[in-house]
């Protein structure tokens, strides 16, 4: 059934083309503000996918992924703000900071199992936030720092939005491709096996500690790259956008709703979450009878998530795949 396989790739290629064309299409349907909504979705997708390679694949559930995002965001922003470092230096420095934080978390993580590890990751961004407040002269504290070098140099608001969108889209697609390749390689197989039974992997002659550290490096590197670009997209360093529990939870919601341990699931989840919330806002503005949606927006999404966890624990994408498989059963694997 090779044409079906090709069909799948054609479908993906079609999606990419659609994403590339969407700024022009959105301008045409007179909804240019959706460009920035999609940009946000791209960033959340990067964060959710970076979480997935650590938590979804190796099963080390991180509740504080904003720690890595924030470490990179703060490093890049502060270097750029105080030392006037250009982005091509400050962003890599931010990524390095995130990876160092990843290693810093990985070492105790090798000794902590299950809930203890998760508890530690939950506390780390809070600790980092305290540091931000203590050194507020330098960090800008709760208000943050403004006037960072922007990602896009385009003139005009809409052109600016478009360039930002393409930066975020490029990052998102690169992340998706790299992580999917890793997930399908032997490294991904080892990660999944560690999630299911670490002792069995060790008994297969594989150093699980090394692979777990690798998962931290990959995850923090990507979260860091996203975080460093994110602050320059906003052109400002605001702790509530990169170092809060809300962000940590949001990216988990996207990943779990889409389907953790799949990479593509978190991507889809991020788009549904960001796009869906914006759509609800627009519906609410449309007529007074729908006004309640404005307030109910987040609540509805959380209820949907709870239902998903109940009825399709593996997430939306895997649920759709198995539904598809039931509707048209694949040919039996030849071998």
């Amino acid at each position: 059934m090779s044409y079906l396989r090709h069909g799948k790739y054609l479908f993906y290629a079609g999606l990419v083309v659609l994403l590339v064309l969407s700024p022009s299409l959105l301008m045409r349907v007179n909804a240019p503000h959706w460009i920035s909504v999609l940009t946000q979705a791209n960033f959340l997708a990067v964060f959710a996918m970076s979480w997935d390679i650590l938590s979804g694949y190796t099963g080390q559930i991180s509740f504080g992924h904003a720690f890595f995002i924030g470490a990179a965001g703060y490093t890049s922003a502060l270097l750029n703000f105080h030392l006037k470092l250009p982005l091509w230096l400050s962003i890599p420095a931010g990524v390095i900071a995130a990876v160092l934080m990843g290693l810093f978390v990985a070492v105790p993580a090798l000794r902590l199992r299950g809930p203890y590890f998760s508890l530690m990751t939950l506390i780390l961004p809070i600790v980092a936030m305290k540091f931000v407040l203590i050194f507020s002269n330098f960090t800008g504290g709760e208000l943050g720092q403004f006037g960072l070098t922007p990602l896009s140099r385009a003139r005009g608001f809409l052109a600016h939005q478009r360039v930002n969108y393409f930066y975020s889209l490029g990052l998102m697609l690169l992340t998706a491709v790299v992580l999917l390749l890793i997930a399908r390689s032997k490294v991904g197989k080892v990660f999944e096996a560690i999630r299911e039974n670490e002792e069995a992997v060790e008994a297969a002659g594989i150093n699980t500690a090394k692979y777990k550290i690798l998962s931290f490096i990959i995850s923090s590197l990507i979260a860091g790259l996203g975080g460093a670009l994110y602050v320059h997209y906003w052109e400002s360093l605001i702790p509530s956008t990169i170092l809060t529990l809300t962000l940590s939870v949001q990216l988990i919601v996207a990943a779990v709703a889409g389907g953790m341990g799949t990479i593509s699931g978190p991507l889809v989840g991020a788009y549904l979450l960001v796009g869906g919330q914006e759509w609800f806002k627009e519906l609410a503005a449309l007529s007074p009878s729908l006004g309640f949606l404005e307030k109910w927006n987040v609540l509805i999404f959380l209820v949907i998530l709870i239902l998903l966890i109940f009825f399709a624990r593996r997430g939306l994408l895997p649920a759709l795949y198995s539904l598809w498989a039931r509707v048209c059963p694949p040919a039996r694997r030849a071998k």
Partner: protein
Amino acid sequence: MKSVLELERLRKTFGGLVAVNTLSFAVEEGEILGFIGPNGAGKTTVFNLIMGSFKPDSGRIIFKGRDITGWRTYRVVNCGIARVFQLSRFLRHKTVFENIEISTIQNRIFARENRQARERKILQAAELVGLGEDLWKLPGALPHASLRRLEIAKAIATDPELLLLDEPFAGLSAAEVEEVSGVIGKFRESGRTVVLVDHNMRGVMRLVDRVVVICFGEKLAEGTPAEVAANPQVQEAYLAGGGVNDA
């Protein structure tokens, strides 16, 4: 005969409990050694010490002339010892093929992988244990005896020179014991060595070349199955379990 594995005055305590007490014995190349003792005698602890799950308090473990005492499990496995656990540890959402595949993956992250060689190894291991037909099934769909075989296949796929089997016959019917015995025999025919733990002496007597009996962490007897069965001390140790022949 050359010794493959030597345990020298191995000792391990848990708090006040002496699980293994100055235990020494050697495993000869190419033999099937029965490692036998009543429940709680310390057999699994000895396996855990060899595989690096625990570090011994004192004593040495020598494998092919190398001191491997206290090595981490993956290193022990990579130097040529594999263990089949008493309880099956399979990946539930992965097929039999994928379960065995993990054992063929190299520890080095950037190692060049030879896919064909790996697939061949997986198929060989599966054929050897008789799972050739079940490669695309999930472990949950296999009967108990086949899960034991899967465990053996996983161990064999790491290419061990020495295979440690922890109660491979537990919970198997007489016919299934025959089958699994056949698998172990076939593995030995390829020139490799097997150590077999069991508390049930009768089940293993026909299969093994030599027996080491331990009780309360100490060696009680060593010799051919007939010698050991006739040993009065062994018989006494097994009295609680109903005697050597009924155990």
